[in-house]
């Protein structure tokens, strides 16, 4: 899985803006960002309130072959879209597609955010320590992240899925696996940032004044790392969501019957000609959330990093 968005290595710390302020500015400046922010919020609401929305729709995740035609496809046009079934139903089983998509959003977002948080925490700890401590530890970290980045990680994710005991919650497993394979990207950026910060005199000054490693790290470095951390993580979320879906697509994601966009899409692909709506709803959702996170993340970067302004 390659980097979807190459990140600028370094963020000028001069711009001491906070994340909410940056986000707010980006939203106000650009209608496109605003739209995407709304999409993110909408999908998050969809996921969080899945039970509520599905209850309002009057459906659940149960099998319902009455909603199917004689060939096992949804009865009625457009994949069975109706007042009862907002997105229609799943072929062969008649499960409400809106319910599948809504609960699937929950999994996608949970895994996407969880994996991002884990990758970020690991990446920051490892990257910052490598950049700050240097020496052999730095070499080990650089080398390990090279190995990780050049690894057929998919193989491992699939294999680990097979090794893990059934009792182990799948979402957690996905978060852990994606997080572990995601840290090098964060670590590289944080390391580069720490290296350049360490050369700055305020870090030297703090050390000369007698500040210990922990003091220097928390008081001097960390406040200056927030911007790159936020940027890299906001751009990691969509790739993690995509990775979860890809793993589910390859059959190594969450276990059935837990709804997952990747699994639904993988299933729906076979029905693209007979029941296109089955693919379109979850596929569009996946595309939209990825796009929206990317656009918003990008805008935040533009705001926080004056050097990259207008990059696109």
């Amino acid at each position, binding site marked *: 899985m390659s980097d979807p968005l190459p990140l600028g290595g370094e963020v000028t710390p001069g711009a001491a803006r906070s994340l909410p302020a940056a986000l707010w500015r980006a939203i106000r400046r650009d209608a496109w960002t605003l739209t995407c922010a709304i999409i993110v919020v909408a999908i998050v609401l969809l996921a969080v309130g899945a039970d509520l929305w599905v209850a309002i729709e009057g459906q659940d995740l149960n099998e319902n072959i009455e909603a199917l035609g004689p060939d096992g496809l949804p009865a009625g046009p457009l994949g069975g879209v109706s007042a009862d079934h907002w997105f229609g139903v799943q072929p062969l089983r008649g499960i409400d597609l809106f319910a599948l998509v809504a609960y699937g959003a929950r999994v996608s977002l949970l895994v996407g955010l969880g994996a991002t948080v884990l990758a970020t925490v690991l990446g920051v700890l490892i990257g910052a320590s490598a950049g700050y401590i240097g020496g052999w530890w730095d070499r080990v970290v650089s080398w390990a992240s090279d190995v990780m980045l050049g690894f057929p990680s998919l193989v491992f994710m699939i294999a680990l899925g097979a090794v893990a005991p059934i009792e182990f919650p799948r979402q957690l497993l996905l978060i852990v696996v994606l997080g572990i394979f995601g840290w090098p990207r964060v670590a590289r950026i944080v390391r580069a940032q720490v290296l350049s910060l360490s050369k700055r*005199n305020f870090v030297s000054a703090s050390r000369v004044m007698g500040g210990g490693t922990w003091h220097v790290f928390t008081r001097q470095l960390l406040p200056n790392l927030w911007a790159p951390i936020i940027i890299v993580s906001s751009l990691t979320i969509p790739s993690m969501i995509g990775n979860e879906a890809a793993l589910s697509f390859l059959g190594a994601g969450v276990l059935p019957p837990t709804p997952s966009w990747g699994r639904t899409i993988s299933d729906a692909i076979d029905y693209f000609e007979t029941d296109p709506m089955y693919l379109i709803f979850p596929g569009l959702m996946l595309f939209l959330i990825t796009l929206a996170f990317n656009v918003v993340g990008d805008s935040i970067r533009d705001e926080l990093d004056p050097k990259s302004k207008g990059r696109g």
Partner: protein
Amino acid sequence: MTDLLELHGVEVSFNSVHAVRSVSYSVAAGEVVAVVGESGSGKTVTAMSLLGLLPTTAKVSGRALLDGRDLYDMPPADLRKVRGGAVGMVFQEPMSALNPVFSVGDQLVEAIKAHQDLSTADARERAIELLDLVGLPEPARRFRSYPHELSGGQLQRIVIAMAVANEPKLLIADEPTTALDVTVQAEILELLRDLRSRLRTAILLITHDMGVVADLADRVVVMYDGQVVEQGTVTEIFTAPREKYTQELLGSVITLGARATEGVERALASELVVRENHLAVSEHPATSSVPDVPAVEPVLTVEDLTVVYGGRLRAISVRAADRVSLHVEPGEVLGLVGESGSGKSTVAGAVTGLVKATSGCVKVAGADIARVRGRAAKALRRKIGVVFQDPLSSLNPRTPVGDSVAEPIRLHKALNGSSVDKRVAELLESVQLSASLRNRYPHELSGGQRQRVCIARALALNPDLLIADEPTSALDVSVQAKVLDLFRSLQEEYGFACLFISHDLAVIEQLAGRVAVMHRGHVVEQGPTNGVLAEPLHPYTQRLLAAAPVADPEEQARRREVWRQLKV
């Protein structure tokens, strides 16, 4: 004499910023016109507008006539012929002015071929000729070098060669020497002078260094806030400035007072030249450092300090400090001078413990800084304050300056609660800053203010020893003067000992009681300031002194002669 270049009512604005307002001046053929003025006064913008090199956001109006043709409304193809053809341009930072991925020869050939219809081989020959012209040794070999393989001075020579490749009538030089050492600067200025006489090229020189102006210019244009406030011949401006701003500008120039280099003595026979407390090594370039002079009860002693960078895995190792021995007595200011890369910061780093000594030792108040651990180490830290060169990078951009000043106090738990705040206010006041600035972030302060904050932080715990590594070199001349004044008065008031690093001899002369001169990792000379500056013993010190230009055309002409003699 007809004017080669005439500017009439030039205006430049960027969106809302009106950067240049109604600027008019002219340059005659073969003449050197210097444009001076403080940072941001519009010197560069004006010059760049001539060749249409401003970003597209800039709006330019007025007229700029080159040989009677208006540069501002020339068709792009014609303007391209002027660029590098009739007008050559030299920029401030030679390192970034050259494309790092092409060899310097390539870039030079390209400049030639853009204007002359030569075969590649001929262009190459011409390029080597030019490299020779600008005084680059081994031009044929250098031709294939890449920018990163050359020193700043060499690169600036190449940039100049490129600018004069097509024998321009006008050479625009925007701060061509500010990024360079004084010694190198003197050579570049000599080169420009030489080119002018040989090629009869007019030079539009942009600088803020009045010494450089005195050295090279025929006429001076003074700019302030986007406008020309005064112009005249160099003698007029230096002897009888009319405008208040020009007077101020000249007033804040710190000049080397000592009439250095009278009677150049060169017959140095033995290894060490000793004159009371004034020592110097005799060879040049030096292969060893002078021993320390005896000390009574020093706050700081550096004994046989050697620092080697790299080595082991990396192939090349740098001996940045070689058996350096120094001391600083309580209340004394020791100046450390030398050109870039001579190892000054390395010594400072070893003293503060940021750089690990390869051998030798550093003692602060009798304790070896590399040996002490735990509480003793922390106690030792209290006794040292540090001020760095670049005030912006010395302050955490995400911390209000008040907190930065309070950091050492909190770290050492010297005070608590509200008394910390009181102490911070006190400190800010002592560096002549309003206590109300404490909640500001560094980027909300000016350069001078920031440096004051740094000084306040360094003094927060009443240190016995202050290390100041080029504390004013990033500041504007006028600001620099104020900060130095403050520094001197604080030193008198608090009486701390100080290791003061600078590459500017004039600054050292004002502050330091004793001075040590470094060259390529060795201390080549040390002694009382007036002794060293008035009667330098080591050839390198002599050259350093001679190379520093002074803001007085006549005096500068004399010094230039001395420098030329020394050069041989």
